[in-house]
């Protein structure tokens, strides 16, 4: 079975690194970007199986990125999960209402991240 490819877009280098290590420890192939624009380009370039993105980023925000990906037929079906430290309920609801596949509030444990990730990958088939 081919390795699943996850794209991580995260402003904070430590968190980006943390997620990447977690994924790689679980056998996922990881591509990462520190801003939305790069993330968008990488998704087109690599066609990942999963996009995990921060919400607030310089330049293209997580929401912008999500909408852009969903609008593009090439990337429209890629499972997408927001990860943010914004604990307001409204933010979570807005993200899900937009159609994001999942939402993860920072901080999170390894188990929490991996449960959601596995679920998303299973859904995508």
């Amino acid at each position, binding site marked *: 079975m081919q390795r699943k490819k996850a794209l991580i877009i995260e402003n*904070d280098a*430590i*968190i980006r690194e*943390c*997620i990447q*290590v*977690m994924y790689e*420890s679980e056998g996922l192939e990881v591509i990462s970007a520190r801003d939305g624009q790069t993330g968008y380009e990488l998704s087109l370039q690599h066609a990942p199986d999963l996009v995990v993105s921060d919400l607030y980023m310089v330049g293209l925000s997580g929401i912008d990125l999500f909408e852009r990906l969903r609008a593009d037929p090439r990337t429209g079906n890629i*499972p997408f999960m927001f990860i943010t*430290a*914004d*604990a*307001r*309920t409204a933010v979570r609801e807005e993200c*899900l*209402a*937009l*159609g*994001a*596949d*999942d*939402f993860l*509030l*920072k*901080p*999170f*444990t*390894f*188990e929490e*991240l991996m449960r959601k990730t596995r*679920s998303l990958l299973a*859904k995508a*088939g």
Partner: protein
Amino acid sequence: MKGGIGGRLAIIFSLLVLVATATVGFLVFWSAYESLIEVSSESLEHTGETIEVRFEASLEAISTDVLFLAETPPVAGIVRAFAGPYMSAKDGGFLDEATNHSDAEWREQLAGVFAAFLQNNPSFYRARYIGLVNEGREIVRVERIDGQLVTTSTDELTQSGHHDYFTEAVNLQGGDVYFSHIDLNQGEEADVPPGTPTLRVATPVRDADDEPFGILVIDVDFTHVLDAFRPLINEDEALYLANSHGDFLLVHPDSLAATVVGPYQIQDLFPKTASWFAGAAGQPAADVAIPDESLITHEDRLSFNSTLDPRYLVFVITSPSETILARVRKVRTWSILITVVFALWGIALALFFSRYLTRPLRRITRALDRFGQDDEPPIVDLSMKRKDEIGVLARAYDTMARQIEAQIEELEDKARRQRIILETSAEGIIVTDGQGIIETFNRAAQRIFGYTAEEVKGRNVNMLVFRDEHDKGANGQVSFEDAGRWRLLGNGHEVTGRRKNGETFPISLSLSSFELGGEKKYAGFLQDITRRKQYEQTLHEAKLSAEAANKAKSAFLANMSHEIRTPLTGIIGFASLLARQVSGKHKKYSQLIESSGVRLKETLNSVLDLAKLEAKRVEVQLGLLQVHTEAQEVVQFFQTQAQHKNLTLDFRVDPESEDACARLDRGAFSSILHNLIGNALKFTETGGVVVSVEADAERVHVHVTDTGVGIDPSFMPHLFDVFRQESTGLSRSHEGSGLGLSITQRLVVLMDGEISVESEKGQGSTFTVSFPLAHAEETRPGLEVLGVDEARKAHSSMLLSGQVKPRVLLVEDNENTQFLIENLLEDAYALTVVSNAEDALLEAFNTEYDLVLMDINLGEGANGADVLRELRAMPTYSTVPIAALTAYALPGDKERFLEMGFSAYLSKPFNAEELLTLAARM
């Protein structure tokens, strides 16, 4: 009082009395006149009758006398002598052989009888014995000449056989009496004066063979008889008596005779008598003062000797009506007098009565006039004790006056009160007319505006009040006049006022309009709200700053949260990662780092929760939950933890309360129990925790009882305070933020619940939360309607009690989505999946589902909305929850679907939690 009722009454009454007495007087006068005339006529008639009686008596007497004379012996002797042989003149002629008397002797005897007879009857002036022989030559004749009785010598005796009286009388039967006409002596009778009425009375004498022999005749001076009538005639009466020709025989009194007797006959003077005379009526005597209407007359006839042609006398008795009129006039005078007297009396009475009637009336009217004009008390003596209408009127007036007095007093009292209210009112009160001209300006208004009432009365209210600043539509002026147009009528309009010193200030104006005496008025009630406005401004500013502070706090919390979470992510993430990759002591260390991070995260979450609760930003979604099921789930969650601490954790349900439901937010209720059970375990070192559910008639209670350290009574009041733990500082023995109970309590209250605690230090504590019982029928309309179907109801109750799995129909054409939902729901639900509209309807028709999850886009053919319409048309699905699952997620889509009839809406892609929440809620 001129023209008053009294005067008019007097006049009318007097006129009535006048008319009445005049009428009565006239009637009395007239009837008196009539009866007097009648009495006079009767009197005259009576006189006439008396005359007649006397007349007849006189004639009777004369007849008797004549017949007596005829019976004397000489009369028969002479008859016999004349039949006897003639002797000689010397021997006295013939001889009566029966008596042997000569006729001469008989004549002498008879003359003696005659003489004696005449001597006794002065009215007889001649007596004669006339025989048929010798052509009616007188046999004996005695007459009164110059008062001497003279017996005519035989030689001087005359023949009288040619006279009517002889020829008429001689043939009469014996015993009959003849009366001649009564004629006036025209001179042929020398023995009586001319003009004397004379009557001849005769009776026949027959011989032995009853052959006529001659007559005995007496000449009567009728004056005596007639004069006997005079005394019967009253003083002012007159008697006119005439013979059969109308010649006057007697006129009494004599003074009248001169003018009447001679030229006239009786029928000339009295035409009424004309019918008694043969031939035409006499000529009316125009040239003489004949008796006329002024005379009362009585006419009659005196008849005598009916055997021959009627002989009669006509008489008229007159009485001057003047006499009667004089008497009548007396009556008239009397009646006039009486009329006048009665009229005067009447007038006097009328005046008296009118005064009697009108005086009290005048007094009442005077009292009415004075009423209310002066200070004199209007209650005056008004003949109130009278029992008549005047008394009634007076009493009515009195009652009215007293009532009016009382009312006036009441009104004055009211007016006084209103004036006091007006003047002491803290609100300024301005009353204007329809044009806004100020009429009333009370003390408070004077204080507010600085004007005195005198300064503003009569001026327009515009000088005082202005339109408030937001409404500068027109010239900014307020006129009460067009208050309606300005929509100013009503309460609490803010307008601007201007004081006398020019200062403007805010006013709260309540304006009302009313009608007074047909005029429109406006009453404005004003309050100077300068201070209120300042206060409001301050308040507003305070509110704004508070809001700003609150916003800042929220922003701060959000930022803090974000800034703490970000580094924590690294800490927890790497720690959890590390724990998987190292072993032994290092693994333990990294796990400690991770759990510390997690605790920090939980504290952070609690702080945020509390902040949200305090800001009332938490909205609970209440749904019907079976309390014991929810509680059991949480207990289950803590089992592992309890085992780690070697504590028992038991769950008990009162069997009768298994069905108890309450309207709760699942998350909030769960977090309440998490907190309580977590706390119980945390503070319990030995023993265990019991969670029990029971319900009474109104509420369902959940008790969490531990055998832990208990709570010190002194801490009880602070139990639910924020950041409070009983042990603080260095001696703090239990970890935790101290926020849990605060949050718990707020969540309980938010869901209409109550929380209480019983504790004994060292023995343990029991926390109890309770919520109002809710019933499925009330809160789940879907089930309620389905309840019509008994089987369905039974199914519903089984669903609630967890005996059967709810039946869910998924209509979805995308296989991936089908797969996902199947995985998510298959544990708790009996799921049937169809992929097109036709199958969906068929399936829905065959089986009654508890929930339908409907994709909208079903590829070709009918879509989910069409299926929905079909389902909603089926009675069994009219209220079954049908949720829309769709990728249509643009703003407004949700509302559109709900409007269509979907019970819920879930946009794709959705996550597991969302779907489960939705399914559970349904």
